[in-house]
């Protein structure tokens, strides 16, 4: 066949970013160990979903926040190569700083306008100790921050669900509550599979006519009641 016209072909990047609370309270009752286990166990499922859609290039990163924030995995890493190193805890809950750092990475450039909507997964067990609203504003000032699929998981009863709801930004989508390790595993698996699948093959839709979610989010796993005998957090 004759030479194909045009430059290099490429699948569309899908940036998936874990934003994990590593404040001191996450060390209580094994929360951080449960989170490390849940993410590690979800990775094979995530890879499988990515394999099923070869037109999306799933690139994973992780940011941790406590006193300040820093990238735990700074390079957008193909999901096939992504490895999870255990998070450790210390300090307070500087969520605002974390969101500002994510916002920097969602600028165009380094982001491309041909990317698929990024998926941001925020996991927290407490209340922000810095200027959360400033960080959220920085995120929402970026076109890709506004269009990102923003999911939040509240660990334990002390998590500030109002803040997590503000992060999500869509009233029809609620923070997922995890009060025990099993529920946390289920939620992490859901975002790693069902949400990733939706985000990796979104159909076009008319701007301004939808309820605000530019990616259809599947129904989350059924949560137990307000409190369950298995709850430890």
């Amino acid at each position, binding site marked *: *066949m*004759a*030479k*194909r*016209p*045009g*430059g*290099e*072909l*490429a*699948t*569309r990047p899908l940036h998936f970013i874990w934003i994990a609370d590593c404040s001191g309270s996450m060390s209580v009752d094994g929360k951080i160990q449960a989170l490390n286990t849940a993410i590690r166990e979800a990775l094979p499922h995530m890879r499988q979903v990515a394999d099923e*859609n*070869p*037109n*999306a290039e799933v690139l994973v990163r992780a940011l941790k926040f406590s006193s300040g924030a820093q990238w735990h995995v700074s390079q957008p890493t193909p999901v096939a190569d992504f490895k999870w190193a255990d998070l450790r805890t210390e300090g307070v809950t500087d969520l605002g700083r974390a969101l500002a750092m994510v916002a920097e990475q969602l600028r165009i450039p380094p982001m*491309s*306008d*041909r*990317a*698929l*909507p990024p998926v941001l997964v925020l996991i927290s067990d407490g209340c922000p100790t810095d200027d959360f609203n400033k960080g959220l504003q920085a995120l929402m000032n970026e*076109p*890709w921050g506004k*269009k990102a699929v923003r999911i939040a998981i509240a660990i334990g009863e002390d998590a500030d669900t109002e803040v997590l709801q503000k992060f999500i930004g869509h009233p*029809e989508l609620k923070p997922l509550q995890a009060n025990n390790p099993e529920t946390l595993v289920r939620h992490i698996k859901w975002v790693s599979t069902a949400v990733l699948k939706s985000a990796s*093959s*979104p*159909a*076009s*839709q*008319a*701007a*301004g*006519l*939808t*309820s605000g979610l*530019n*990616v*259809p989010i599947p129904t989350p796993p059924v949560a137990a009641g307000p409190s369950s005998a298995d709850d430890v957090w």
Partner: protein
Amino acid sequence: MTAPNPPNWRTLAASVRGAAHHRAGLPNQDAVRVARANGGLPLIVALADGHGSAKSFRSQHGARSAVAVALEVRGALFEPDSLSRIKRWAEERLPLELVRRWRERVDRSLVRRPFAPAELESLDPASRQQVEANPYLAYGSTLLAVIVAPTFILYLQLGDGDILTVSASGEVERPLPRDERLIANETTSLCSDKAWNDVRVQFQALAGAPPALVLAATDGYANSFRDEAGFRQVARDLWEMIRDEGVAAVQPHLKAWLNEASRQGSGDDITVGMIWRPMAAATHSQPDPG
């Protein structure tokens, strides 16, 4: 309004079902039509990309209607009797006319074939409410059109997709700037409220150096390249192939190229329409005859 020795513009169009649509069992939701007057000009190439989201479950039909109304309004474009009036009509009235006629077609379609319970039952309650409040949403589509007349070219775009021009010397340009709002698979659409406000029109009088080739493509094509430069190169490469080897170097391979781009790129449906001047091909190293 006739130009001396109007060039014999040629056209080529192709559309392929996206690799992701193959996997999901979805049809090709793009549409394309080419039409020309008996004497050759005016000619039109119109492309449309049906949205394909769950709420736009009839967008394949919406896209077909979009290209059909583009062909219809092409006739009305020549009723004004001077270039400046045509330009004004194109900029002020054409968007309204396109949206009005597209909605009339959708209305007729809905009378013939109202929404079936199965179509609505597959939607979540919020989506169903939106479609019932705005049935045009079910038919949502973009529209790109290029009309070549003896004395002007009109570029028209509503929603995502790309139009590129290549000059006789190989320079690639966008006659319409990119709409920075259109990311994350959201697009302006024929089904939007006051959609005519989102129709972008560029009028080019053919007094100076007209483009040698115009390429219009649905967004699945540009999204299949790593960067903008790689996509722009498509237009330049196609022009050079046609200029140096004739259309036979492109036509038999075009669908295979588009399939390859979808498979290794966006996975989306891809549709292209091309218009070029063989005269420019024959005289590419000569001063442009104008």
